[in-house]
């Protein structure tokens, strides 16, 4: 026993002697990323992670982040929230109390962003969710911001677009009743559409539940209702099924979608059936110019596919954090004071030139920004069609 102890102590002593001095001379600025790397929506987590890592490369190439004339090294703390609320809360608490991050980008989906925002606000740490569209995420939380427009804005945008573009008066809606994003958007769209075309102009308001794969009964009802256009604010895997099944059942009219269509997977799964359809989103990859194009090309070259809206919004969000830190002017080293300073600087950001459009934050921490209507071209690319501003 005594021998064992001696050997153990010896090993530890040697290990201690050879373990290098890891303490950096300058304390790094840490930025937290809370992303769903495993779980239901890994593609979202991947886009978030890649965009953040690309940003870090830029900062590293520049020799650090320049704040008030001083260069600081930057570290990213990437935590997986497993697409679960409790895990997002744990990751949030860990990053804030253990890693002492100055600001957090994410979580992406509202399911995690709402409880995550609560934690960030309690600990007075600025957080920006690039993708969460639920109003509750930022409501009454001065430290929580978001990088995208909200559903109450997107619904009317689409209703107006369909009205102007096709001059239709009768619309049908098909949505997932068990998922908060489609459900909210479907309702905002119905309100806006009935305001434009009078009550009863939404001829069918059909729902299904997450993971359903057969929509024929709902689609038959929709076709029989005499609707001229179908609106379906679904995610990429369901979009492909809905569009293909609608066409099989003889639906010839346009199908319109929302920003959840924006994933690169939509066209991959849907194929020719989706060509020529419209949806509203945050940015359009095909035909992009300037900084947006630069971002898309870099991302495509590095990771082998065109980035979807999550990656673009994350890129913008992390650059808003960067801008806020720089606007802060001077870092004191006291993490609490610095967080407050970053939060105040972030709230004051005006006309931020992002790759997904110009942004200015409202009192609630929601950006005022334009939506883009995208047309899926005959080559399956997402083409810019028009821009709708509030």
């Amino acid at each position, binding site marked *: 026993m005594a021998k064992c102890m001696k050997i153990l102590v010896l090993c530890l002593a040697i290990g201690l002697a050879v373990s290098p001095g890891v303490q950096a001379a300058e304390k790094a600025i840490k930025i937290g990323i809370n992303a769903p790397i495993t779980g239901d929506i890994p593609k979202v987590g991947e886009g978030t992670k890649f965009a953040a890592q690309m940003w870090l490369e830029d900062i590293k190439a520049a020799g650090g982040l320049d704040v008030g004339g001083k260069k600081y090294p930057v570290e990213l703390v990437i935590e997986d929230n497993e697409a679960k609320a409790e895990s997002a809360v744990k990751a949030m608490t860990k990053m804030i109390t253990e890693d002492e991050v100055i600001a957090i980008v994410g979580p992406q989906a509202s399911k995690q962003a*709402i409880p995550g925002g609560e934690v960030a606000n309690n600990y007075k740490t600025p957080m920006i969710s690039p993708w969460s569209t639920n109003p509750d995420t930022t409501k009454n939380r001065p430290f929580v911001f978001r990088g995208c427009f909200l559903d109450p804005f997107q619904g009317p945008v689409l209703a107006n677009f369909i009205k102007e573009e096709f001059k239709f008066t009768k619309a049908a809606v098909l949505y997932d009743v068990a998922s908060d994003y489609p459900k909210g958007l479907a309702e905002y769209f119905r309100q806006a559409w009935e305001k434009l075309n009078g009550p009863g102009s939404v001829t069918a308001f059909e729902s299904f539940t997450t993971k359903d794969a057969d929509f024929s009964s709902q689609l038959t009802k929709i076709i029989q209702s005499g609707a001229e256009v179908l609106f379906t604010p679904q995610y990429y895997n369901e979009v492909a099924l809905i569009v293909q099944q609608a066409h099989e059942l003889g639906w010839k009219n346009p199908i319109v979608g929302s920003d959840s269509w924006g994933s690169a997977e939509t066209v991959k799964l849907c194929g020719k059936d989706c060509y020529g359809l419209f949806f509203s989103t945050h940015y359009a990859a095909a035909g992009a110019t300037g900084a947006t194009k630069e971002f898309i090309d870099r991302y495509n070259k590095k990771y082998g596919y065109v980035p979807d809206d999550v990656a673009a919004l994350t890129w913008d969000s992390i650059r808003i954090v960067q801008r806020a830190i720089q606007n802060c002017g001077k870092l004191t080293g006291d993490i609490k004071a610095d967080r407050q300073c970053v939060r105040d600087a972030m709230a004051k950001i005006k006309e931020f030139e992002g790759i997904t459009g110009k942004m200015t934050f409202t009192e609630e921490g929601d950006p005022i920004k334009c939506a883009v209507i995208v047309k899926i071209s005959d080559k399956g690319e997402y083409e810019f069609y028009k821009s709708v501003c509030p």
Partner: protein
Amino acid sequence: MKNTDLPEAGKQDTFRTSLARIPLLGWLIGALVAVLLEHLTGLRLAEALLLPKVPVLFGLVTMLKTPLLIPSSVFYVLLIYILPTFIVARLTRPLTNRLSAGLFNLSPAVSAVIHLGVFYAALHLWSEISDYRVLTVKLTLIAIMLTLSLNLINGYMGEFSCSHPGFMALGAYTASVFTLSLFTDSRMFGTAVFQAGYGPFLFPAALILGGFTAAAGALIIAIPSFRTRGDYLAIISLAFMFIVKSMIENMEVIGGPRGLGGQPDYANLPAVFVWTVLCVWMINNFVQSVLGKALNAVRDDETAADAMTVNTRQTKMTAFMFGAFWAGIAGGLFAHVLRYVNPATFGIQNLAEVLAMVYFGGLNSVYGSIVGAVSMNLLGEALRPLEIYKWIIIPLLLILVMIFRPAGLIAFKEFNVRNLIRPRG
């Protein structure tokens, strides 16, 4: 005591027997001293060892993130936790043995309460260092309650129930609606009925109400499904879970799929700890009672149990509702720890996690449930830096456990409190 097979035979006792003779009180006091030591010197020692901060979960996260820091982390854990606990426990052995003998003779109940007090003090001091520890401890304690209540049904009763997330959701939503509508100004339920100051005192009522709602839900499944046996209960209870989930999704009053947030912050560490202790105590008493033994008899052979005058139907119903009750309480606590609930949380994934904890820890065993819940939760947190590989390692562990110990790590073992707290000297 035999001590002839070791070189240090001359000494009074060997290493192992010397450990075996330390009573639980000694270990607890050792742990308390260790966490006190961490409070006083942890930060300085961590700095001296070049660690960025005090290692939060016994250094596991630090080790995986920066392998270069493995020696420092091991050294830290050894210096702060293992050595002090061991040394104090060993040095105070005569004292603690006498003390626990005195307490035990006085009254085992008092002794148990004192043990719990010391344990809580150590836990509280340990978690006070970081809020991340507090959150991890709270969620782990809730997981213990859930695992234990499911073990009651799947282990002790021998049925396969899949409705636990459903019971949890019922408890979580009932308790949330209770606290939100009575003590807070919320968007959905209007202004507060009572002053917010009463909230913490009525919080137990909210939880118990949640528990009763869950038990009522259990009654609804129990009536039709206990006419059948085996797989049928699994199917019916799985259906029940989906019914609860879609019911909540379609109820706009309580937020529908958007969820319900802003619960008051009542579930602090002492509250969660007290409820967990109550849960362990009550379930442990339940399974050791006549009813609990009847439950085992029903599991092993229902016809034989019936012939031996066991009222099988009533026994099963009681156990099922009792399990559901505690799942409801755990759900209520869960909602108030996260301060947000969402129907999607209570789905298949949640079910899989609870089942994994039950089968990993061990069927028909209170020890097993505690071990399963704690190890799964700590592993889940500690392996965080591995990202996606975490979900290869944890299932692999489960498979290994299932191969080598098919009933779980510590299955079919009684949790005997008297035996645990007795003196060993």
